[in-house]
Every structure is written in C-alpha cells, then in structure tokens.
C-alpha cells in the first residue's frame, strides 16, 4: 500500500465535520447576506471538497505524482474558466456590437 491505512476514527471524524459543514451551509442560506451568500456557500463547499479529497480519497498520503495529477486538473479547469470568462466578461466592454457612442451622437444629431 502506498498510503498508510487511515484509522476508522479519522473517517468518522471527517464525516462528522462534513455533516456540520452541511448544516452550516444550509443555515447560511437562510439568511440574506447579499453577495456574501455565494461566497460563503462556495467556501464551505470547498472545505467539504478538501476534507473528502484529503481523507476519504487519501490525498494526504498519496504519492507526489497523484498530487501533481490533481493539481494539473485543477489548473486545467482554471484555464477553461478563465479564458472563457475572459470573453464573456469583456463582451460588454466594446460598444462595437451595438454601435459606439460616436455613432449614437451622430444619430442624435440627425
């Protein structure tokens, strides 16, 4: 075995932590925190993911290679998101699609 056998007690502890996090995130959703709702809920999801990855999936004791694989896949997801959103979040910047201000001024003058 490449990794040490995690003790059953660790599994149970992690499970309890996960349930607590679940309760927290549901509770947080009952309050209107504005934009913070999304941030809080995603932070809790991230924490849950880290728990599952490190302990249930034994990333804590995995070989460096497996850790590299995980890092790489997260990096690639980041590439997919950042470059796609680079398009979506800048589409409104250019008024060329709808006509620039200059054009509208000339229209108004007509």
């Amino acid at each position: 075995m490449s990794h040490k056998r995690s003790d059953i007690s660790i599994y149970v502890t992690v499970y309890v932590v996960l349930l607590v996090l679940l309760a927290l995130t549901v509770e947080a959703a009952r309050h209107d925190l504005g934009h913070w709702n999304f941030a809080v809920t995603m932070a809790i999801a991230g924490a849950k993911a880290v728990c599952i990855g490190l302990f249930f999936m034994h990333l804590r004791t995995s070989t460096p290679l497996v850790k590299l694989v995980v890092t790489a896949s997260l990096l690639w997801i980041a590439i997919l998101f950042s470059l796609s959103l680079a398009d979506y979040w800048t589409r409104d910047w250019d008024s060329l699609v709808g006509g620039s201000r200059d054009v509208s001024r000339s229209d108004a003058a007509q």
Partner: protein
Amino acid sequence: MIDDGFRLLPEQASTHAPHVDLLYFCLIALSVFFTVLISALIVYFSIKYRRGNTKVDRTPGSGHSLMLEITWMVIPFVLSMGIFAWGSSLYFSGYRPPAGAMEIRVVAKQWMWKFQHPDGRREINTLHVPMGQPVKVTMISEDVIHSFYVPAFRVKRDVLPGSYASCWFEATRTGEFHLFCAEYCGTNHSRMVGKIVVMEPSEYADWLGGGTSKEPPAVAGERLFEELRCGTCHRPGGATGRCPPLAGLFGHEVKLTGGTTVMADENYLRESILRPSAKVVAGFQSLMPSYDGQVDEEQLIQLITYIKSMAKP
C-alpha cells in the same frame, strides 16, 4: 461587373484592405525567409554530410548549445509579438466604426441576405453603397450562424441569431464585389452569395431616390411603438416613475438594480424588449411584459432605430 480574371490577390476596394495586405506581404516575406533558410540548411547539410562523402569533418560537437537555443527562441518570440501588435491594432480599427458611419441593417436567413438602407429602402442579396462613405452594417440572423464576408473589403463578421453583430467598411472603388456567407449554414450555403455595388455618392443618391415607396425604419419604428402601445408608459410626460426615460438613452451607461452598470447599446435594447426583467434599471420595478414572439427581427430593428432617434428632450 465582377472582375473574374485570374489573379493572385483579391481587389483592394476598401480603406482597410491595403493595411491588411501590407501585413500579409510582410508575413509572406517572413515566411519565405524562414522556409528558404530551413530548406537551404537541409539541402546544404544533406549534400555535405551525405553518407558517401568521406572527406568531411564529422568530429562531433557538444550536441547542444544554449546560445543557439536561446537565439531561436527569442527571435521568433520578438517577431511574433510584433506581428501580434500590428494585427491587433488593425483588428481594432477594422471593427470600430468611425463617427458618422451610414448604418445598414442586415437580416440574414437560410439562404439570403436582406438589407435595409437608412431611408428604409430594402434589397435582397445585393447591397448598394456609396463610395468614400463609412458604412456600418448591423446584422442579425433569423436562424443559424451566417457570416458576412466581402473579400475585396477584407471584412468578415459572423451573423449570430439572438444578438446584433456589426462591422464596417469604406469602399474606395466603384464596381461590383462578391458578398459571401463564410460560415457554413446548411444545404445552400454556397448559394448564399450576393454582391456589393459600390457607386459614386451622387449615383447612390439617385439610386435611392428611384426606389419604390418606403418608410425609414425610424418612422416605421415610431408607428410600431404606437401600435404596441409602448407609449402608455414610455413617454415623456406619461406615467412618470413607472419606467426609465427612453429619450437620449442610447449610447449611455445605465445603472441596474444590483449595482452593476450596462451600456445601453442595441443588444441591451433588444434584450429589454424581449426579456424586460433581465436587466432592470435601478430604482424601477420590473413591470414590463415580454414582447418575445410579438415582434420579428425586422420590427425589432425598427423599434430600436426609433428609440435611438429619440433625442434628449
């Protein structure tokens, strides 16, 4: 007539075309240089170091050279960044219409082009434009993606369903030029062609004058505005407070509920007519019903043109 003789380069018929061609020629020079360099080296080495040639010095070198590697990494990098900057600046100017451009409305559908001139005159598959006048085409598709492509102008832009796309050109020569649909759009894709007829401005004016009865889109839009009873709310002096003012709206930033701002461009107006609650102006409630399905693409264009024509009171 479209010039159909054999040629190696398309005609240059817009202000943009010579700029693109210059970049193209530089790229060709660069490519020829590197192709010749590589080929010459291969041929030279192949002859000099051919198996049978025993008189040549084959004392092995180190097998690698950091200096050489850096050289042939840095040179392509610098060259390509230069091309990038050049290409980008042209791209910007190629898609940014200058002030005072004449606006042509285009609706594309399988497999035809429908044009409407600012004075309301309509054409199908043929577009007459005056020479020496910047022309901005604002385009939308009724079905799939098409692409507006005039090789002689070096201009191309995909025509999307659901949102407006635009490009512009200023013709520098009179004559007829190909218009192609460049994005594959189904069975008769290759028949979705037309022509651009560039005329002297005076001829163009004559041509416009000779058309049949027509109604400028802004006027048609105003009529539609009444028919759809938009004026009940959207009228200066109407039910104030229920809706944001339309006059002078176009081309300005609008504050939305939620704190974000949006540019009031044509896509914004289109969305606000079809899906009014998508972007609600700050300080107002979402009361307006959707007009999705009640107006077609051409009517939408007319409404938007009318809204654009409303000057600030």
